[in-house]
């Protein structure tokens, strides 16, 4: 039995047995990323769910070298790993990845991430975005979407949850003029793997954001992780794109567009928006974010004067 298990997972670089929750998007993201990169990488993770569930001493699911330093410095730590590899003449054979959550990326770690971008280190920074501080028990981050109820942005008689829109971190990454910025979703694994491989073809800093549903924090069944990931993309709330320096933005088109209520209505964090007496204006404001994404990024092919636009 044991041998059979080992045989089954012998080539997998992030093996089962770790402590992620059932239906965790992040664990799947890590496995897919390492499938794309292969074994010659060093991974840095900031503090967060991934760090906690993958590193209880003396166990490890990691088949690659892995370094966790602190919450707010993964960009800097990865910079240091990269320069050390360069000094050792290993930079062509061993590449550096960061895999961290939105709290460590959008909020507390954004300074060291910006430094890593600006200095031009050859690092792929992957943010698995589950839209709140899940490791500490579902508190609001600057990646938490408008209207989501969390433990620190609770809905109540005088509040409808998170009352500010998300920070646009991919746009901040693009503003650093780094070679490659992209968004992906755990719900589209082939697209995710392709983007990781594409990113690794570039030298210099790369940023990849991966939408990653969290059953605990979002309030959905563990079996629905992939469905919800798809709905976020199909409603236009989480646009998938690639921004390669010097090239026009490439987006993944939405073929059958859905309304945001189809996505929001399946998650407990938005349930207050559907209660009796709920303010219809709130749903309209969230729909407006999706509409804006669709128009701004050209997510839906429109029929103009009898012909389809041919973008991407």
């Amino acid at each position, binding site marked *: 039995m044991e041998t059979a298990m080992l045989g089954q997972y012998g080539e997998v670089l992030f093996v089962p047995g770790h402590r992620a929750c059932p239906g965790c998007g992040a664990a799947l993201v890590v496995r897919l990323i390492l499938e794309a990169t292969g*074994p*010659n*990488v*060093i991974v*840095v993770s900031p503090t967060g769910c991934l*760090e*906690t569930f993958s*590193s*209880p*001493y*003396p166990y*490890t699911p*990691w*088949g*690659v*070298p*892995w*370094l*966790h*330093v*602190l919450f*707010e*410095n993964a*960009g*800097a*730590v*990865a*910079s*240091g*790993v*990269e*320069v*050390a*590899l*360069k*000094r*050792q003449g290993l930079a062509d054979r*061993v590449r550096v990845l960061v895999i961290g959550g939105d709290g460590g990326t959008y909020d507390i770690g954004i*300074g*060291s991430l*910006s*430094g890593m971008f*600006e*200095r031009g280190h050859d690092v792929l920074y992957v943010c698995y975005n589950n839209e709140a501080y899940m490791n500490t028990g579902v508190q609001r981050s600057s990646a938490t979407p408008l209207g989501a109820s969390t433990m620190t942005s609770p809905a109540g008689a005088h509040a409808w949850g998170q009352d500010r829109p998300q920070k646009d971190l991919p746009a901040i990454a693009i503003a650093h003029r780094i070679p490659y910025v992209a968004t992906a979703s755990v719900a589209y694994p082939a697209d995710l793997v392709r983007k990781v491989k594409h990113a690794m073809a570039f030298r210099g800093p790369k940023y990849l954001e991966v939408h990653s549903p969290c059953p605990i924090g979002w309030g959905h069944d563990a079996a629905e992780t992939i469905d919800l990931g798809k709905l976020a993309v199909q409603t236009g709330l989480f646009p998938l794109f690639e921004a390669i320096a010097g090239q026009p933005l490439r987006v993944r088109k939405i073929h059958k567009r859905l309304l945001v209520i189809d996505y929001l209505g399946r998650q407990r964090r938005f349930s207050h928006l559907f209660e009796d007496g709920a303010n219809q204006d709130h749903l309209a404001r969230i729909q407006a974010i999706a509409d804006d994404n669709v128009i701004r990024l050209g997510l839906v092919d429109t029929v103009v004067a009898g012909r389809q636009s041919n973008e991407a």
Partner: protein
Amino acid sequence: MARSTVSVMEGSLAVAQAVKACRPAVISAYPITPQTHIIEDLAQMVAQGELDAEYIRADSEFSAASILAGASATGVRTYTASASQGLLLMTEVLYFLAGARLPVVLTATNRQVSVPLGLQPDHRDTMGCRDAGVIQLYVEDVQEAYDTHLQAFKIAENHHILLPTMVCMDGFVLTHVVEPVSILDQTEVDDFLPPYAPLHFLTPERPAVFGSYTDDANTLEFYYLTQQAVLNAKGVIEAVAREFQEAFGRHQGGLIDSYSTEDAEVVLLAMGSTVGTLREAVDVLRQEGIKVGLIKVRCFRPFPGEEIRQAACGAGIVAVFDRAVSFGYQGVLATDVKAALYDAPQGKRPWVLGTTAGFGGREVTLDTVREIVNHAHKVLDGHPDPADEVHFLGLKPELLRAVGKAQAGPRG
């Protein structure tokens, strides 16, 4: 005799020369006064091709230390320098470096901590990371700063230690002073300090994990091992000082230095640049027939309690010159000295007089020392201080009156 050249240079340049001779692979830093000249000199050396190192200009001191954490974990020699707020910003990383056993060497150019914002050379900054598991060595003059940096890498990288090691030098007083310094030839330094041989490092050839999550079943053992590593440094620091002397013919190092303590009634005890002043003062007072001696605490962590006990036991009183106070208790150094002397044999335990000479950068002069020695004699004559007292020397009553009676004085 070792080949060396005596040159007159600024303290910061001497430190940069020492660091260059140690051939760090990665340097990362962020500017803060009074550390800037060191990192500027190193930047020049890299720019001129005199030093072959990666020089990473970080976005903060926090990132500088984090960059070195990553580089050190990947198996190369690393260096940074900071002070004051910068050191406090690094402190979270220093705790990591100690726990992960990464031998980063750093220079702390001691400076006061805001507020009040200022540039005075006190020790509140380095005391703020006292408990991290960092080895702390305090130096007295520029030559010692140069020599100690050469030793620091050897101490830090010893496989029985593998800890971040901090060379503490009083800002301006030592960083910006110009003194003659004996600079060793590169080949001599290379013989003394071989290339870094990491025990554990990140490589895909042998995947390993740094920075695990632990719980109540295993955290205590990690702490125990860190404590053992810091304590191991006591023997290694002494051994490296002996090696240094054999190689270069001059003694520089060890845990403490004793000066005229054998028959001393009053022993002065200090760290850093104050020691130079006290050495002069001891000579003057001895000529006047006053039995006074001096203990220089060079290594603060690990704390040389046993060594201080042996050197001070014959004396009647130890007067501690503290450049840092743990507000609400006492001078930080004095507290540790008292703890060390508590274990002295019955009847041989000296009194301890806690003073803040040099705190806030207030100058320590011969008159300051006389005042303290006079006070010490009063204690010996049977007038001990109230328990836990710390003397703020040279307070200006007119300034205290200006902030109002409510705040200025002690309240009963």
